[in-house]
């Protein structure tokens, strides 16, 4: 790695994508440069950000370096988060999801019977969010569609597999 500016740009990219603070060792190892050189480049980058009055910064944290936002910008970020809260599942969606998780594959009518209300909207929401999917049709008159949970469901709830769900009869017995 000869080119000074090029190295700085690579460090910037690495700091951008890294999922955790990057140690000096790691950076210098990837770029094949001395840690002291890497440190200088990071400082230059930090200085450039500062001089340009950027909202982004590079900080030293937990034995490494990380790209982050300056705290003056937190209000703006809050507004972004506020809007994302809509992603939340409604209680009725959670309820329907729980029923599908435990009784899959299940038809909409069966869900409706358990919940005592029509679930057409909730089921569509869960389909849209890819938490459930169609898996076929039940072999009864009318051949209603059958729903099951998806891989996304497991991911969203951090479950290793469906068998990791607490057993329903253990949760509520008697």
């Amino acid at each position, binding site marked *: 790695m000869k080119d000074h500016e090029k190295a700085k740009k690579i460090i910037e990219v690495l700091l951008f*994508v890294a999922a955790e603070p990057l140690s000096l060792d790691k950076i210098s190892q990837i770029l094949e440069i001395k840690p002291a050189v890497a440190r200088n480049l990071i400082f230059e980058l930090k200085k450039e950000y500062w001089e340009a009055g950027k909202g982004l910064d590079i900080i030293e944290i937990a034995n490494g370096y990380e790209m982050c936002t300056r705290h003056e910008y937190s209000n703006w970020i809050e507004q972004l988060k506020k809007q994302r809260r809509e992603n939340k599942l409604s209680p009725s969606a*959670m309820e329907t999801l729980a029923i599908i998780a435990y009784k899959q594959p299940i038809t909409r009518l069966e869900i409706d019977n358990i919940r005592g209300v029509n679930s057409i909207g909730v089921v569509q929401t869960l389909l849209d969010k890819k938490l459930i999917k169609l898996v076929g049709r039940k072999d009864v008159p009318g051949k209603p569609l059958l729903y099951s949970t998806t891989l996304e469901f497991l991911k*969203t709830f951090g479950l290793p597999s469906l068998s990791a769900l*607490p057993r329903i009869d253990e*949760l*509520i017995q008697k």
Partner: protein
Amino acid sequence: MYQVRLPIFEGPFDLLLHLIKKEELNIYDIPVAKITRQYLEYLSLMEALDLEIASEFLVIAAMLLSIKSRMLLPKHQIEGEDEVEEDPRLELAKKLIEYKKYKEAADKLEQRFSFYQQIYTHSYKLEMQETDLVECDLFELLKALQKILKKKDGKMEILISNISLEEKMEYLQKLLANEEKILFLDLFKETRNKMEVVITFLALLELIRLKKIYVQQQKLFSEIWIFRQ
């Protein structure tokens, strides 16, 4: 040594297009007898190699044979009309052209795909973080919940809880607004019935999913702590 290299085809149209391209033929003017022979040769090669032949290949084989025989028949003209009978190959040609279009679109998509696989967004980073963090802990959480349910078994009232998931989530967040961390077990100290235990647990899951909180333990089987994000 002679070795047979068997290209894998997506379907009968893919195979036909391959044959047409190899022989540099015009799709609208296919020498049906020749192409049919080559097509059937390919099928018997697949058979000889014990490869399963999808039924769709046989359907098109039958179609080719039918076109071939129709082309052998003398053209009969209906009296009084000078309309020429449609080329029996036209329907197949249209299908092949249509298919070829999407095959090329797929190539273009493939190019875009490999290009964008080399581009990393910040959200990619966030995705990695999430799964790493929650996945291992949840298994522990479930085990912890089972312990609580066992411990409380018999001692709990059987009541229909009047606390909703929403309320429980709010309650948990209020608790965490004052404290930096809470012991998982402490959350269940005052739960009065199983339904409430379950709701507390679901609220916890939902808050983890929304990244309001995260759970950690120092090592496997040690106490589980809940932190606000």
